[in-house]
């Protein structure tokens, strides 16, 4: 600021010009100051803690992160543990089904709401309501509903329908679907609202043009409208995906990993080993594997999405 007050005379200009370093530091100074807290957060919390996690996952730390370096022993133990392997399988199965069904059901609901129906806002509120509840509440409610003696099965049997069976929550082969029902009940409404916003963003004249072209409504949705909603779809996938990876509280409230270990998930494994199992090294190894999985999915996607910038436009 100060150098603007100096009268500009020939020759003095270069003398008064601040040095390169000074210019880099002072240019847009307020913006730089404002960005410092976030930069620190990124460096300390994201990068720093990740490195810390990876380092201590290679130690034999038990109750406190103090152990000595032992290389990949924790990882060998991790993949020899059936509870971890079941957790990973469960997460993949749950994740694929949850992602597909949430998107499909959310889209179908959005399309139904989009038909200029009455009481649209009432429907929207009802559908979105579960999203306002925490997973703990969702899990408890569905635990009661699906409880074989107290819930739906017991009620219908008491009403005289004695052959009725709905015991997924107690059945090791079906318990994942019980989780899925609760998860879908919780998440589809939100997906629907996102999709509805996307549908509303489509120009009315596109619909008219498609009608004049004689394209059936379902075909218009799939071939024309859905591709136009790419941005909304990416948002929905990211939000649903991050919900899947950190799936924890729903399992704790609904099944607590049971029956047996049939509904365990990685986040629960990590939490148990770190805070109640007294084996930080093992927990951090699990956490590192979760991070690695996310990176394996995210990096190719980010590369495809942002990498080939020259090819687009």
């Amino acid at each position, binding site marked *: 600021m100060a150098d603007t007050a100096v009268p500009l005379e020939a020759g003095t200009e270069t003398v008064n010009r601040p040095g390169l370093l000074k210019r880099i530091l002072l240019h847009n100074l307020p913006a730089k100051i404002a960005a410092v807290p976030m930069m620190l957060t990124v460096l300390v919390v994201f990068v720093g803690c990740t490195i810390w996690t990876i380092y201590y996952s290679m130690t034999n730390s038990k109750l406190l992160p103090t152990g000595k370096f032992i290389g990949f022993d924790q990882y060998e133990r991790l993949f020899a543990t059936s509870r971890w392997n079941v957790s990973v399988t469960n997460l993949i199965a749950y994740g694929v089904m949850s992602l597909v069904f949430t998107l499909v059901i959310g889209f179908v609901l959005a399309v139904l709401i989009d038909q200029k129906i009455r009481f649209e806002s009432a429907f929207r509120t009802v559908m979105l309501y579960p999203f306002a509840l925490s997973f703990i509440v969702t899990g408890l409610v569905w635990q009661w509903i699906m409880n074989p003696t107290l819930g739906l099965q017991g009620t219908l049997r008491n009403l005289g329908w004695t052959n009725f069976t709905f015991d997924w929550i107690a059945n090791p082969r079906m318990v994942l679907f019980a989780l899925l029902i609760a998860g879908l009940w919780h998440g589809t409404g939100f997906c629907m609202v996102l999709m509805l916003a996307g549908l509303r963003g489509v*120009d009315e*004249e*596109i619909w*008219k*043009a*498609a*009608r*004049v*072209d*004689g*394209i*059936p409504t379902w*075909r218009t949705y799939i*071939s*024309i409208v859905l*591709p*136009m909603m*790419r941005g909304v779809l990416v948002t929905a996938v990211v939000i649903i995906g991050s919900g899947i990876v950190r799936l924890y509280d729903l399992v704790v409230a609904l099944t607590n990993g049971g029956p047996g270990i049939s509904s365990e998930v990685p986040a629960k494994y990590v939490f148990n080993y770190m805070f109640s199992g007294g084996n930080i090294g093992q927990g951090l190894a699990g956490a590192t594997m979760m991070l690695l999985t996310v990176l394996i999915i995210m990096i190719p996607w980010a590369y495809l999405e942002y990498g080939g910038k020259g090819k687009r*436009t």
Partner: protein
Amino acid sequence: MQHSVSIRDLSLNFGNVKVLEHLNLDIAQGEFIVLLGPSGCGKSTLLNCIAGLLDVSDGQIFISGKNVTWLEPKDRGIGMVFQSYALYPQMSVERNLSFGLRVAGMPKDEIERRVARAAEILQIQPLLNRKPANLSGGQRQRVAIGRALVRDVDVFLFDEPLSNLDAKLRSDLRVEIKRLHQRLKNTMIYVTHDQIEALTLADRIAIMKNGVIQQLADPHTIYNKPVNLYVAGFIGSPSMNFITGSVDGTTFTAADGTKIPVGAYDFAASPAGSLKAVLGVRPEHILLGDAAQGMPFKTTAEIEIVEPMGSETLAWTKVAGVPVTFRCSSDIPLAVGDKVTVGFDIARGSLFNAETENRL
């Protein structure tokens, strides 16, 4: 002669709001009809009814002699071009053109033949593999026209197709649409609020207001013999000059007492006795200086504002106490404060009943 499009007693209500009321319109084969009016006059609504995008409340629509009132748009034999182009953004130009035909299950070689023909007519062959996002506004609108073209239909509907383009492109595409019409000789119905587009393109113009067609005539008649005050004021830029007063026999007396002879006027029916009236005269029909000497009515007026427009000059003055604009050659030097003789011949002007606003 069989009409290409016939609209019989068409009414459309949105709830209690009557948008169109008992509207009748016959359009001949190969005719270029422009529906012209301000926003909210029902012209786009009428076009959507013809296209089948809106269900009518009452009345019937015939296209090529077939009653299409309750048919789906695709079965009506129409192609439509929209203001926002409404291209499918994720598809290439070629696919935009062919998608409707593909869905209809047309043989591949027939689709290719039609797309090639449309691309050739519209000069869009180099663009066929591009996405709409990579096209300019004019190119997009050409593709949109192409999408109507491949449908091989009898009637083309245009819904303000040039409104999203800048002035230069608009006049270029206007000529192209006219050329297209001369080449294809299809019936075209074109909605616009731009009177220049209407006057240049149309075989006949339908001027609409509040869901009613005010006048349906060729551009020359619309311009020179408007049926009422509304049409007279809507068409023409700068608009027609109006002088209120009363007419009695062959004399028009303006509000300030100025007498204007109207004996040469071609009355539809001679008014009986004295009648409150409005006299309208177009700015280019007011003559200046020597040319005004021979006119049945002439007066001296003071120039108040001069607007040089390059090819011509617009000047503002007062005649019979009301502001009047006139148009003259830019070669005539005019300055504010000049006293000039202006005059006009009522035979080229219009007289309207002040109460009914209809032409006398």
